[in-house]
C-alpha cells in the first residue's frame, strides 16, 4: 500500500487564535520502508501519526490509500490498483473497518485492555469482525517472535513496560496489516529492549509493510529508510 498525505494540517483553537499543531504537510509512506519521525515533545508528531492512521481528521488536506496488487507477497512494485481510497471521505463504519483490515497501530503510552490476558489482547483485533482463521496459532507465533510467549495468560497489570510494548506490537501485527504505526514504542525502555523493538520494526518493514515510527531515540535513525524532523508543526527531512 502507498499512503499519501496531501497538504494535511491540523489546528486547534487556543485562546482567541488558531494554533497549528500540524502545518500544511505532504508525506508518503510506502510498503517495505521504515519511516522515522522525530521531534521535541509537543511538536505535533502524534497529531500527524493520528491523521495518517485514520484516528483524527485533518483540518485541511486529504489522506489517500493506494492499494498495490501483489502486496501480499511482499513485492514493493505491485501494479497500481485503479482507485485510491480517500480515508476521510469514508463514514465511521467504513473507516473503522479500513483500520481493522489494513492498519496496525501501536498507540503512545499504555495501551492494554485491562480485562483481557496478553493472548486475548493480541487476538482482540482479529475478532472484531469475522474471526481470522488460525488466529490462536498466529498469536502464538507473534508472541514467540516478541519473546513474550511465557506471558500469554498474564494480565496487563502484571507486565513490565517493555513487555507491554511488545504485546502492543504483536497485537498491531495480528491482522497482518499493510501499514504499521508505532507512536513512541521504545520510550522508557532500557537499551537492550529498545534495540529489540527497533530491529523487530525493521524486520516488519523488510517483510513489505510500510512502517511509521515516532520516537525520541536517536539510534532509531540506524534502522530507518527515511528520517523526518518535526518542529512546531513543520515537517522536514532530516
Amino acid at each position, binding site marked *: 500500500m502507498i499512503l499519501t498525505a496531501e497538504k494535511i494540517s491540523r489546528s486547534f483553537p487556543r485562546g482567541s487564535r488558531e494554533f497549528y499543531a500540524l502545518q500544511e504537510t505532504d508525506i508518503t509512506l510506502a510498503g517495505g520502508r521504515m519511516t522515522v519521525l522525530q521531534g521535541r515533545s509537543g511538536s505535533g508528531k502524534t497529531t500527524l501519526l493520528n491523521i495518517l492512521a485514520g484516528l483524527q481528521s485533518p483540518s485541511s488536506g486529504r489522506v489517500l490509500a493506494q492499494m498495490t496488487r501483489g502486496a501480499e507477497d511482499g513485492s514493493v512494485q505491485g501494479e497500481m490498483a485503479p482507485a485510491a481510497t480517500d480515508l476521510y471521505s469514508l463514514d465511521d463504519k467504513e473507516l473503522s*473497518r479500513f483500520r481493522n483490515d489494513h492498519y496496525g497501530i501501536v498507540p503512545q*503510552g499504555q495501551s492494554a485492555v485491562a480485562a*483481557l490476558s496478553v493472548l486475548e489482547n493480541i487476538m482482540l483485533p482479529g475478532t472484531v469482525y469475522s474471526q481470522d482463521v488460525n488466529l490462536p496459532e498466529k498469536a502464538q507465533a507473534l508472541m514467540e517472535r516478541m519473546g513474550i510467549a511465557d506471558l500469554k495468560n498474564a494480565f496487563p497489570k502484571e507486565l513490565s513496560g517493555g513487555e507491554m510494548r511488545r504485546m502492543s506490537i504483536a497485537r498491531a501485527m495480528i491482522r497482518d496489516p499493510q501499514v504499521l504505526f508505532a507512536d513512541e514504542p521504545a520510550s522508557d525502555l532500557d537499551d537492550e529492549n529498545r534495540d529489540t523493538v527497533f530491529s523487530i520494526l525493521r524486520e516488519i518493514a523488510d517483510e513489505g509493510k510500510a512502517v511509521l515510527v515516532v520516537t525520541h531515540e536517536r539510534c532509531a535513525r540506524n534502522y530507518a529508510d527515511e528520517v523526518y524532523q518535526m518542529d512546531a508543526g513543520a515537517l522536514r527531512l532530516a
Partner: protein
Amino acid sequence: MKIFQKLPLLNILRRPVRSAVLLFMVAILSFTVFGGAVMVSGLRRGMASLEDRLGADIMVVPEEAAGKDGLESIVLQGNTGYFYMDDTRLEEILAVDGVSQAAPQIFLASLAASCCSAKVQLMGFDPQSDFTVLPWIRKSYAENLKEMEVVVGSDITSEEGDTLTFYDVDCTVAAKLTKTGTNYDRCVFAGADTIRVLTSSSIGKKLNQFSEIDPNHVISCVLVNTQDGADMDKVVSAINETVDGVTAVRTGSMVSGIAGSLNGISRIVRVMIIVVFVLAFIIMMIAFTMLINERRREFALLRVFGVSQGSLARSVWSEILLICLTGALIGVLAALLVTVPFSGALQGRMDMPMLMPGIASMLKYLLLAVLIAAAAGTLSSCWNVNRVCRADIGLALRLEK
C-alpha cells in the same frame, strides 16, 4: 465466542468487586419494586378473600360481643373466643323486613390443655342455611360433613384422616381447606351439631365461661343477606330496633378498616418504590459514569483496533444491561426468599390478611422489576455511552497515557 463479543462479560467477571457493587445497587432497586408489588398484591388478595369469607351483607352478634373484643378480635386479630345468644333470635331476624337469608354460626374455642389437641377457634355452621363457609369447603370436600367430622384451615397442621380431640371428644379431619390468607386459615369448622356436642362437653367439664347456657339452643352470630334493592342501612337499624340484645353491623364496615390501612400501605410502598428508584437512579448514574469515564482510553483503544462507534456502543450497552438484568434477578430472588416464607409472619404482625399472588402475577411483577432495573440502567447511562462512543479518538488517547 469471539473475544470482542465476550468483552462485556469478561469486564464483569474479571472485576468482581466493581461488578458486585453495581449488581448490589441494581438488586436493591428490583428487590423493592418486586417485593413491594408482591406485598401490596398479597394484601389486596387477602382482603378480597376475607370479603368472600365474610360473604354476607350484615352480621348480627350478641350486644356484648360487638366491637373490638368480640367478633373482630376473632376474625381480624386471630384471637380465640366465643359468645352466645338465644337461637330464637334467628327467627326474629328472619322476620325483619328486607332480610332474605340468615345463617347462624356457633363458636367455641378449645384450650391449650390436656383435654384438647390444640388451642384453636372452632366454628359451627348450619348446613341447611349456610352460604359463606360451605361454598369454601366445597372447593376441598364434595361430601356432606357427618357427625364428629371437622374440616381444618390450611394453617392447621393436621391432615385428612387425623383425629383431633376437643374437650375429650374425638373428631375426624375430613378435609383441609384452601388457603385464604386470613385468620380463617387457623380455624376448625364443623356442622353446628358437632359443635354443640363439644360445647356440652366443655360445660360438663366446667371449662366453658358460660356455665348457664343450653348448648342446644344457643347461637353465636347470624349472617344476613338482604333482599335485592333493600337499603342495607335500614335493615341494620330495623334489626337493632326490633331484635333484643343483639347488635347488627354491616360486614363492609369491618372490612373498611382493613381497606383503609391497605390503602395506606399501598401508598407507602408506592412512595418507597419511587424514592428507591430515584436514589438508585442517581447512584447508578454516578457509578456508570465512573465506569465509563475510567475506561474512556480503553474505549478509544478499541476504536483504534477498528471497532466502529456502533459496535462500541453495543458492547458498552451489553455490559450495562448484563449488570442490570443479573442484578434485577438477584433482587427478585432475594425478595422471593423474604416474602414467601415470611408472608405468614407478616400477616400476623400487621393484622392484615395476606394471600400470595399466583405464578402468573409473580411473573408479571418479575418482568416489571427487571424492566424497571433495565430502564434505570439505560436511562442513567445513555448520555454517557453516547458521549464516549462518539468521542474524538485522538483526544481520548491523550488521557492518562
